[in-house]
């Protein structure tokens, strides 16, 4: 029984290793489609990353490389969602206080606080800073 199980497991492992380059290629194509909103760039990167993964030595390295691209794509997608949400919050805060100019055009926090509701002003500036921090994180990823 144990011998049969060992044979079956080794067969399964062989199959997994055999399809891993194909899986890696699929994964990087998916990662490119998730990471880039621009379809042209996504297409270019998908082909480019497929070539990159294809030239990696060994099936495990191919899979690990592909997993790196997938992880990064997922992280970027999550950051994009957070960024969009923060921008919505900041814009809503500014709409509520129309006299408050956008932070990047207008005065800094003390002036904003004098013109509008202090809490909302803090939220607007803080939100802008957070959006900026997320954009920096995008570059670091």
């Amino acid at each position, binding site marked *: 029984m144990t011998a049969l199980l060992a044979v079956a497991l080794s067969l399964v492992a062989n199959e997994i290793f055999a399809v891993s380059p194909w899986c890696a290629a699929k994964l990087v194509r998916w990662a490119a489609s998730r990471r880039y909103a621009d379809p042209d*760039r996504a297409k*270019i*990167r998908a*082909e*480019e*990353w*497929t*070539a*990159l993964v*294809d*030239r990696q030595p060994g099936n495990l390295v191919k899979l690990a*490389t592909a997993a*790196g*691209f997938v*992880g*990064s*794509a997922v992280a970027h997608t999550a950051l994009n969602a957070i960024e969009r949400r923060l921008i919505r919050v900041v814009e809503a805060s500014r709409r509520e206080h129309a006299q408050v100019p956008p932070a990047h055009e207008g005065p800094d926090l003390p002036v904003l606080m004098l013109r509008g509701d202090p809490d909302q002003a803090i939220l607007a500036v803080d939100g802008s800073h957070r959006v900026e921090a997320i*954009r*920096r994180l*995008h*570059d*670091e*990823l």
Partner: protein
Amino acid sequence: MPGPVRVTTPLLDVLEVFIKTLLAGDEDLHGWAIMKAVRRSGPTVYGVLDRLEDMGWITGRWEEHAEPGKPRRRLYRLTPAGETGARELLAERRPEALKPSVEQARPVWHPFPRGAGAT
């Protein structure tokens, strides 16, 4: 043309590789070569390449003679604006990157020195 908005260490690393390749007499680099040179992951390097392409500092093209049965690689090179910008940025942040290496500084022997045959 917009300059680099955020100067990060990976950005400087990649620019340094491009400039050193240029100093060595080559121009084109593919992503894997850059990854190996800077010892950074693929997503990090491609994030930098995205930004440099958006800034117009590098331009990419597909390799013409790909190995049979292999997907094509994409080759990148600095644009004239990119070369100027990269040199300025590295001169400011990493001046040592612009100094020629020992191999590059070594005088090259030439059988007919320039001006030897001039009358």
